[in-house]
């Protein structure tokens, strides 16, 4: 057995920065969905852009000064890769090649009713590539986006779907009022790792070319050695006649998730006894209080002072779900030690199904409780080496699975595919274990709707040069 391939320093200059960091100091983000017409021109444009792509490696120096002043990252749809005349790259994953909008896929992701792919504003079939731009202020973001737009337009590139802009507030509170993005896996050997490394996951779960949690190298797209005309790519260690196009790249899932905030509040108002009960039920749906403090650590009331809001497990103090319900959002998307009867095995299993979230919020906060008709929600963006085993699995087997954790008929009360249209025949519940009798919320409405989505491949820098048809400068 060959030795373990772990993330190393040298690779950081080939890895796009967004994999390693969400760039919290750049809270304004714009996502540009672009379509190419002329491949030759698009390649010229790509050559101009590549040097500006933010890589994982930070410039020499110490401290905050060396954080990037802005960030640009780039990803391609299957059609985009083909458009760059690289039909000879083979071995992309099935879900990436097919796209997010396939009927059977939509069924597993829960994209039906008003969330059906045909109704989306952002459709994968209209997109070749995604430019992700991040900046410290709204003005700088606009300046940067305008400049990029002016530039790409000269190369026959147009907007394939409406650009999306978002902003991450400093308190990380999403539109329903809860602190988001608390639990993120850390990549082993990543420079962005804190010392604690609590939920440290093998690099191969998030970046191609490294060993993953199964001790396997993830499937990777390759091309024949002679087709790598400029010798940019590393040889596939497994078969030296091939070049590894996927090395240091990964798959990216984008989804525009609209949050029906008015409905969320109206539902809670109509189905709870008083303010205290309302606050509790909302927290039970999420699994955390608005401050982000998990119910497991503070079951009765919010306690914003809890320092590490991610340092908890379920089986040692809430095996029965009396604090945090089994069906609660956070217990589904990261079940930690609570899957099945063996907590250690559970933690291992969960590590096979993690994602790196890099999304951002969009839209103004709803003031008042009446729906103002405005669009708001999350521009959900996640990175994983295997969309099927990670993102899709979470969506199907955890979030939308009515049988999750011994339940009978419950889906995720926050992000689940609950009752949407009046004629939906199936209704799902939310069960809150409590003594003496459980509370059951029947016929939960759907609060989060999908308005767009696409699967992308986020290549390493060497692979980008390969797409551009040029030699990578040393």
């Amino acid at each position, binding site marked *: 057995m060959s030795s373990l391939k772990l993330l190393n320093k040298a690779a950081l200059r080939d890895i796009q920065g967004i994999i390693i960091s969400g760039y919290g100091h750049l809270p304004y983000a714009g996502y540009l969905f672009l379509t190419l017409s002329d491949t030759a021109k698009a390649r010229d444009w790509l050559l101009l852009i590549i040097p500006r792509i933010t890589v994982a490696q930070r410039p020499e120096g110490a401290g905050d000064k060396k954080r990037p002043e802005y960030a640009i990252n780039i990803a391609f749809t299957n059609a985009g890769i083909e458009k760059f005349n690289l039909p000879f790259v083979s071995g992309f994953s099935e879900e990436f090649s097919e796209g997010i909008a396939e009927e059977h896929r939509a069924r597993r992701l829960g994209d039906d009713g008003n969330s059906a792919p045909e109704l989306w504003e952002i459709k994968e079939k209209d997109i070749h590539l995604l430019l992700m731009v991040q900046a410290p202020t709204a003005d700088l973001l606009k300046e940067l986006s305008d400049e990029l737009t002016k530039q790409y337009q000269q190369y026959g590139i147009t907007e394939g779907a409406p650009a999306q802009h978002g902003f991450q507030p400093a308190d990380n509170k999403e539109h329903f009022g809860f602190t988001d993005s608390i639990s993120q896996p850390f990549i082993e050997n990543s420079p962005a790792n804190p010392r604690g490394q609590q939920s440290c996951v093998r690099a191969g779960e998030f970046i191609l070319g490294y060993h993953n949690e199964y001790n396997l190298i993830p499937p990777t797209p390759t091309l024949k050695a002679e087709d790598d005309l400029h010798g940019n790519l590393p040889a596939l260690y497994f078969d030296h006649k091939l070049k590894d196009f996927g090395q240091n790249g990964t798959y990216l899932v984008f989804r525009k998730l609209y949050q029906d905030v008015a409905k969320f509040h109206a539902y809670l108002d109509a189905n709870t006894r008083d303010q205290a009960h309302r606050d509790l039920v909302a927290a039970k749906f999420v699994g955390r209080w608005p401050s982000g403090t998990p119910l497991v650590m503070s079951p009765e009331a919010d306690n914003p002072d809890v320092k590490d809001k991610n340092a908890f497990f379920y089986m040692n103090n809430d095996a029965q779900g009396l604090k945090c319900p089994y069906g609660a959002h956070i217990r589904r998307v990261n079940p930690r030690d609570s899957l099945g009867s063996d907590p250690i095995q559970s933690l291992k*299993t969960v590590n096979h199904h993690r994602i790196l979230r890099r999304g951002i919020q969009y839209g103004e906060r709803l003031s008042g409780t009446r729906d103002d008709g405005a669009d708001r929600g999350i521009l959900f963006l996640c990175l994983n080496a295997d969309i099927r085993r990670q993102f899709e699995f979470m969506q199907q087997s955890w979030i939308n699975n009515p049988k999750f954790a011994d339940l009978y008929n419950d889906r995720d009360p926050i992000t689940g595919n609950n009752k949407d249209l009046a004629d939906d025949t199936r209704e799902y519940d939310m069960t809150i274990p409590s003594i003496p009798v459980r509370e059951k919320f029947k016929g939960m409405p759907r609060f989060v709707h999908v308005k767009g989505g696409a699967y992308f491949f986020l290549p390493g820098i060497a692979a980008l040069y390969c797409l551009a048809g040029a030699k990578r400068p040393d």
Partner: protein
Amino acid sequence: MTKQSGLTLILPIKSDLDAEWLRSNLAAMGKQLGKTPAVDFRKSHLTHFARFVVIPGASGQPGGDRLLFSSNFDGDLKGYAYHLIQTGLALAMDEFFSRCEGYTKGTANNPLLFFRFLKGGNISIQAFFVALRAVTVNLIWESATIRRELETSLDARQMRLSETHDLQPKSQPVPDHSKAPSVEPKKPGFSLGTAIANLLISTGQWIIGLRKKQNDPQVNVKTAAQLYAAEDIVTQNQMTVVVPVKQTVTAYVMLRLVLFVMNQVFKLSKGKLSDLDTVHFARWVIIDRGRNILFESNFDGSWENYIDDFADHAVAGMNMVWGNCIGFPMSGSSDVESFKRYIRDNQTPAQVYYSAYPDSTVRNILTDISLNTKVTKLARPYGRRNFIKGYYGSLDFLN
């Protein structure tokens, strides 16, 4: 105690035309299942799961297709054969069977002939996994009803429980199947038995020809559209896999030995297959005089979840069986991607898939039954229904 049995019929289809006819008519029926089916298994309170699958001929080459009918049922084959006639199911299947060789139209009218047909065609199962031994369809249905009635009562808040420990809604009903695990991990500790078993397993895998090596990262899972189309419709999914067995002495011996041992383990473990609790019924059947092996499974949740479970919990078992088959990755089933690809490549879509309880997972059933037992005990003086409704005084005189 009612035993669960499995029926496996593989019948050569008379002609390619008949095969086409069966494919389309069975598929049409499969789509209608649960609505207005021609063969309505719902009438059968003995059938847990059943399926019709058109599978390729013994050589695996096109042409010579065969019809696979299999079911998991309560009791023995004699009782089941008679039951199928009584419920009219046998007659409904007559049309399908009569497109196959060895079946004379009208056989289903005669209980003795029909029984002989089933018995004569039934292929013996080498390893049969039953998650819930002695649990009949009736018990599953009844227990689910009890649970639903209880839930309804709770929803209507008609039932106020002062004794919280009698009927805690979620936590108490299932203490007996390792639901509430301790935080203490199982101590690995040295056990001679485990050491010998591990040695045997690794020797076995070595003999079979499996070698640990780096996985090939060019392996990608490809899934046929028909497989996707039929999946994730109800709580359970089915898997039908037919693969050729290596024609070597080692494979011949190992396959039979391993399946025999597994079958004993299944029997002794009372349905608890390590931590795998998502499989209702599964079977390995050596067919075509040892040329091929048929694997069938009825499992809860997604295909992806199912295979991942195997990769997490039962690598050795998978390797020891599949390792004797042609095309199985040398690196074994811990090479998850290759294993997944192998299964997907060899999976045959089922035209008809019936589940008697399309909304119950194995764990749901365990909860229901344990709840049923408790309620029955608690409510004995009043009658269960009365108890649930809150009529605590005996109303026996009314019945």
